């Protein structure tokens, strides 16, 4: 077996690949968070709760409405998007012009409410959700067994991330979006409905979180606290990537997945913490994040 300095290279490649898969989850969640912050300057602490809501919606769809995984993949993000729009219209809009702190606290409160309600309704044990039949099984690579569903996650989320990045950075719609948040008065004067753009952006970000929830349902247990566990990590990723940087969030998400994977191999106890170490180092050396523009 190939070894280098007593490190099993085969095992290491396996860990790297797994890190990349987790990273694509992070990327998807970080992307939504970064869009909402970059375009709306809202620190969305309810992002984790929306992710949890996505997973639960998929489960409820399967259990009560006979909607299979594929339907959930389409419908749930739309539903969570609409839910996000409602949140934005009713609760977040009134404080949008205030200090960041308030949107952070408000969305944190919303997250507590959602998590509390779902714990009350569904309990905390976690609900089972089977991997769709089409994606069961796996492929034996030289260094590991890769389940098909994991391969699907990595491909699907990369496509979604790339598509979103293209939409925002390269299309006319994206240009409106960016301009509308940079200088709302001017855009309003040009006859563009800025509040609508803001609402839709929040809805889109929320939809991405819902999508990640559906993707997660078959492999992680569908549980009320799934969102709060991952949120703070994803948050760190957005900061490391540079708050508001769309590309930065995607790349950092993937990279942090790999860093975490390596930590799980060398020092597993610290795997939850390593991202914060990176965050401290980045913030102290490159305050605007790896890909952020200096203010």
């Amino acid at each position: 077996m190939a070894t280098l300095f007593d490190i099993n290279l085969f095992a290491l490649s396996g860990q790297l690949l797994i890190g990349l898969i987790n990273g694509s989850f992070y990327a998807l969640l970080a992307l939504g968070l970064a869009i909402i912050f970059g375009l709306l300057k809202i620190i969305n602490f309810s992002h984790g709760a929306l992710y949890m809501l996505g997973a639960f919606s998929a489960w409820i769809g399967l259990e009560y409405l006979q909607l299979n995984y594929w339907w959930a993949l389409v419908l749930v993000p739309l539903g969570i998007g609409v839910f996000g729009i409602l949140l934005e219209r009713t609760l977040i809009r009134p404080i949008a012009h205030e200090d960041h702190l308030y949107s952070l606290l408000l969305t944190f409160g919303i997250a507590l409410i959602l998590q509390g309600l779902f714990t009350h309704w569904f309990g905390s044990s976690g609900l089972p959700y089977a991997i769709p039949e089409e994606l069961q099984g796996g492929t034996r690579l030289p260094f590991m067994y890769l389940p098909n569903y994991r391969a699907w996650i990595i491909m699907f989320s990369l496509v979604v991330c790339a598509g979103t990045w293209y939409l925002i950075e390269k299309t006319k719609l994206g240009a409106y979006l960016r301009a509308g948040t940079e200088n709302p008065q001017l855009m309003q004067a040009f006859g563009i409905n800025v509040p609508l753009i803001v609402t839709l952006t929040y809805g889109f970000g929320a939809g991405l979180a819902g999508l990640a929830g559906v993707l997660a349902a078959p492999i992680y247990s569908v549980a009320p606290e799934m969102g709060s566990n991952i949120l703070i990590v994803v948050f760190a990723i957005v900061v490391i990537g540079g708050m508001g940087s769309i590309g930065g969030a995607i790349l950092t998400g993937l990279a942090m997945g790999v860093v975490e994977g390596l930590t799980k191999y060398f020092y597993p106890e610290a795997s939850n913490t390593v991202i914060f170490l990176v965050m401290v180092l980045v913030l102290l050396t490159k305050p605007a994040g790896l890909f952020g523009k200096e203010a």
Partner: protein
Amino acid sequence: MNLISKILLASALVASTSAAQANISDGKVKIGVMGDMGGVYAEICGRGCVEAVQMAVDDFGGKVLGSPIEVISADDQNKPDLGSTIARKWIETEQVDVINGSVASSVTGAITKLMTEHEKITLISASASHAFTTKSCSPFNAQWTYDVVAMANGTVKPMVQSGKKKWFFVTADYAFGHALESVATDVIQANGGEVVGAVRAPLGTTDFSSYILQAQSSGADVIALANAGNDMVNSLKTAAEFGVTDMMDIAGLMVFTQNAQALDPAIAGGMKLTIGFYWDMDEQTREWSKRYMARMGGAIPSMIHAGTYSSTMHYLKAVEAAGTDESRAVMAKMKEMPVEDFFSRNGFLRKDGRMVHDMLQVRIKKADERRDGNDIFAIENVIPGKDAYLPLDKGGCDFALSQN
């Protein structure tokens, strides 16, 4: 040491004199039930535990020695500081005589210390740590239901003996996980097996694939999951997903009925584990469980709920027999009377506070074996209490040993 010998002396005196006089402090017996009402252990011991205690009180007739029995409950949120605050308040201002419930070992630890200080009994029906009857034992602790030793013995020993010699641990990185791992390691080594590796995963890890991969490349026969709740569910799901279940055995060292129910039978079916009670074991268990389910909107009871009922009932019987609610006299009676009910078979409360009773080795049923969603386990084996629990002389509980 000094305190303990004083207590023992006093308890001997009280036991000899108290039977004659029926006295109940403050004119009532008050039971405090601590539980996790909205957190990760809510289904293990939350509202279900409160209901189980209330049920025991109702079945007992609501009165003991002519005095009413009261039940109060609180949410400890699995926080030791909150649990100890509530317990302190109960002792100092609410005249609580005994506490039952409390899942998280950290909370139970804080409570038992406080209760012992105030010479009051704690019924430990939900916590897994065996410290309460070994190194942190107290003459006021009575631990029901199960503990980590019983779980490890019941699940690990038969597997090692059947030739599965090499073990790999996926351990939750906190006190409970470490304890489970170390207890199971002892069992493995004592039966001629070896531990080829272990990985410590932080509590609440969402993705176990990395750890499962390490387990897979370790060349072990069995992967032991020394974790609980969502950690257990997630690590098992991941093992199935990565095709590990076809190559190696998985041993869940701490699987509650609710977890087994939530797991996809395609993944968990066939897995063997240990429990202290199964609702569908015989007529007696079914009769009690049906009544419990009627109170709980159809949710089946786990061993924790049944154990909570059983310990409460035994306590009340002991109060009646002792003719007082004075803790030492009641505890003496509790240890004197056998514990025999729908929950406990061949049970008795040992000197160190361990309630020794028969445990069940069960197998999670596959989908085609199940009548309905509540049909979860097939009972494979009954483990006699003395084989399941740590023997008294190995536990190192100082006051119980010096008594001999």
